[in-house]
């Protein structure tokens, strides 16, 4: 069981981030709209992020699933989770009535549940980072 969890963690983390990336890549304009709803960035930065972030997520998730450049990918995913947490918390504090935009446009996840899921993903990524390479 102890040997199994890193594989399971990789599958969950990589799978969820890959899915999130693909749903955003299908409609980057809608994803830009979702980012805009957070009212944190100027429009140009929103557009850049909408084009870049899904690819970064896809590359990192692929790296985690294939175990290539894995520690670098996990580090980026932890940083992304921290950024998402800050954005979600700011939306919550400002009482913005938005969906998180985590899995593309029109997804129904509200901010509190998105924060919980984000924390779980961050914990998995940190746990995998702390995992000795030979065990993982």
């Amino acid at each position, binding site marked *: 069981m102890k040997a199994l969890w890193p594989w399971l963690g990789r599958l969950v983390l990589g799978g969820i981030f890959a899915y999130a990336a693909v749903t955003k890549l299908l409609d980057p304009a809608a994803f830009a709209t979702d980012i805009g709803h957070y009212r944190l960035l100027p429009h140009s930065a929103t557009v850049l992020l909408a084009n870049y972030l899904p690819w970064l997520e896809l590359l990192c998730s692929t790296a985690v699933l294939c175990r290539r450049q894995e520690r670098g*990918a996990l580090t980026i995913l932890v940083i992304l989770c921290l950024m998402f947490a800050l954005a979600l918390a700011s939306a919550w504090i400002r009482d913005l009535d938005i969906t998180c935009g985590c899995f593309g446009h*029109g997804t129904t996840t509200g901010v509190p549940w998105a924060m919980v899921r984000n924390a779980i993903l961050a914990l998995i990524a940190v746990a995998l980072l702390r995992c000795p390479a030979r065990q993982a």
Partner: protein
Amino acid sequence: MKTLREAALLLVLAVVPALATGLYHPKRPAWSGQAEALPRATIAQAQSWGNRVLWVDARSTEAYRTGHIPGAVSLPMMNWERQLPEFLQAWTPDRKIIVYCDGGSCQASEEVARRLKRELGLEEVTVLQEGWAAWRRDVR
């Protein structure tokens, strides 16, 4: 150090497809500023239009069940496909559509209004200023 090198490589690699997305994706976001602003109506304006108004409630189904503007059709983004037939049944070309959500900072009414314009090609779609909160304050 190796971890940082790996991370830097991934960060740089993502730039290439991101550039292609920005240049060639059929649904790429526009650089030219924000989307066109939607017309907004106050409660008083909406009431002056009388029975021509078709209220569209963009809040969640639960919120709609708890209370809504009389005659409003529920059409939240999350139940779009399921609720759309009900909206189409209520809509006629002579009606002015006013979409509302909770009020204040909510975005749902704008999202639904833009989707109605984009997907159904409707012209007269307005957003209720201050939404449900204004209705409760001024009308109920």
